[in-house]
């Protein structure tokens, strides 16, 4: 009854192509933004902001990055964490070696560096396809991890190989509390997510999807394969790079290359599978699911077991439930949570008189 677009007439092409054509969607989005920007910082405590919401947002950003590459352009990548590492270390070194630059510029440049590295490792995608490419992106993952572990310059010759983010100052304001870090992350993620949403609706996004669906056909209708695939790798890595920089600065504070190992890549991959491959909204839903599920499981176990379960049993159980859920999701809804949301919206349009 509430969610129905009847009576909303579109009288211009502009209105027809709007990012959220239905008024209820626009209102819902405004409410959501108001909640996360204004209500959450007041209501949530330090633990929720610093240890759950901030990493959730950062990982959503990485998931958007991977979704651009895998979901929209169809190039399966297992090197996400590697590109995140490039962003993290680039931001650290920029701050260290060119201190004149504002922090936000550091973050964006970190993304640009990650994009360049991503494009280099994306070059083989012109000749290599499918699973061969997926394995080839593992080369990026392992090589980048090795470089940051073994080349001292990147960690400023720190003996432990760990980098510590310096205090963040943006336009004279020191960002050091959990609320401020959360808000900084939120602003970056919101802006970049909006950009991504617009990108996938525009010419470049449509050419990615054409390449995903069949690259030979795409080439035949005049889409340049080289530019399209490389732009997908570059923009995807840009997102991952910014996510890596935020991960270091806003979440962990100190970071070693091992924080960006293969299991992180898989974590992001799971997010887009569960959230929905080829959906920006899905990236957020998937990140939320993957970040919150282990916490939920832990709490349930604590309630039931009262400490009788040992830590390694717990870890194994978590593995089993996790793996089982992924298989379950793939069987029940291969298009992920985003698809469920879409179905719910369709149902809602007819509610309460479905006939």
């Amino acid at each position: 009854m509430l969610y129905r677009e009847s009576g909303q007439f579109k009288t211009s092409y502009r209105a027809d192509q709007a990012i959220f054509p239905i008024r209820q969607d626009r209102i819902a989005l405004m409410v959501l933004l108001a909640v996360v920007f204004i209500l959450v910082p007041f209501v949530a405590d330090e633990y929720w902001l610093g240890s759950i919401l901030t990493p959730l947002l950062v990982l959503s950003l990485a998931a958007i990055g991977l979704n651009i590459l895998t979901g929209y352009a169809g190039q399966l990548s297992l090197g996400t964490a590697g590109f995140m590492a490039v962003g993290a270390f680039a931001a650290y070194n920029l701050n260290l070696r060119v201190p004149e630059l504002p922090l936000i510029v550091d973050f964006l440049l970190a993304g640009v560096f990650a994009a360049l590295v991503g494009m280099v490792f994306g070059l083989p995608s012109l000749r290599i396809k499918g699973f061969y490419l997926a394995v080839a992106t593992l080369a990026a993952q392992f090589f980048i991890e090795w470089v940051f572990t073994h080349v001292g310059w990147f960690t400023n010759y720190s003996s432990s190989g760990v980098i510590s983010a310096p205090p963040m100052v943006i336009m004279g304001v020191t960002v050091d509390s959990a609320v401020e870090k959360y808000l900084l992350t939120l602003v970056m993620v919101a802006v970049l997510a909006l950009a991504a949403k617009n990108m996938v609706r525009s010419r470049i996004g449509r050419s990615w999807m054409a390449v995903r669906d069949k690259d030979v056909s795409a080439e035949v209708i005049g889409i340049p394969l080289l530019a399209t695939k490389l732009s997908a790798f570059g923009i995807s890595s840009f997102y991952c790079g910014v996510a890596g920089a935020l991960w270091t600065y806003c979440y962990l504070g100190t970071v070693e290359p091992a924080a960006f190992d293969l299991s992180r890549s898989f974590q992001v991959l799971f997010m887009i599978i569960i959230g929905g491959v080829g959906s920006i909204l899905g990236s957020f839903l998937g990140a939320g699911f993957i970040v919150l599920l282990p916490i939920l499981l832990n709490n349930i176990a604590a309630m039931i077991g009262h400490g009788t379960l040992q830590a390694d049993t717990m870890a194994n159980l978590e593995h089993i439930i996790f793996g089982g859920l992924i298989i379950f999701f793939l069987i029940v809804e291969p298009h992920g949570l985003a698809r469920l949301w879409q179905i719910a919206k369709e149902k809602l349009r007819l509610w309460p008189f479905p006939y």
Partner: protein
Amino acid sequence: MTSDLNFFFEVLFGGLLSGIMYSLVALGFVLIYKASGVFNFAQGSMVLFAALTFVGILEMGVPFWPALLLCLLVMMLLAVGIERIVLRPLVNQPPIALFMATIGLSYLLEGLGQGIWGTQVRALDLGIEDLPNEMIQEALGIQVSTFDLFSAGCAAVLVGGLALFFNKTRVGLALRAVADDHQAALAVGIPLQHVWAIVWAAAGLVALVAGLLWGSRLGVQFSLSLVALKALPVLILGGFTSVAGAIVGGLIIGASEKLAEVYISTFTGGAVAAIENWFPYMLALLFLLVRPQGLFGEKIIERV
């Protein structure tokens, strides 16, 4: 100079033989990919699961050979279970969905194996020493581990057996038919589900052998499942669809990895060290640029 040359051959043989160990893992991938087009990321976890199960059964006091049989039975049951629960509902899904399902499966198997048998490191003694073989040392003057020779022998027997099975039996014929074309195989009345279960069971057997050999070398522990990551470059180098490719790829990767590790770090004075994590991938990547389907893979023909 002779000692230099001897050293070179020692490194080369050591590399070739460890390459065969990689091939063993890669073989499991190839079997499943050939028959069902599924890129089975869980192969490494199957290696871990098989080794854990075997050690667990041994610890219950069962002698070696019955334990091996029991373990084989477990792997077969697992194969049937996977086919029933994971593969059958996912028929007709895009290959990427199946690939992701196998990632989920690998988590499940790791948790299950360690949940049942415990997470601590177990020793596995096959009764073969990991020492230089004296006969070869006397005859040629170079050091080659007996254990490596034994595992090479195992691999040879396994590949020979699989080749016989594929080429000389009725089931093998059905497997090859399914590998060639699912729909045509279905049309002539080959039960796809049985064939898949059989293939996964065969991959389970390969995983068991690989698990025993790797397990007795590294100890049976979680890191066994990471062996799969060593097998992936072998796989793309050799081609996903070729058993011979898995073997040759393993030899190339093993030998070049050891040679690179020894010689590159010597030349650069140790500045470039511990490269064995990524070197095989880079090597495989370079090969792929020339031959995108791997050395022995089927030629990729694109139809629009």
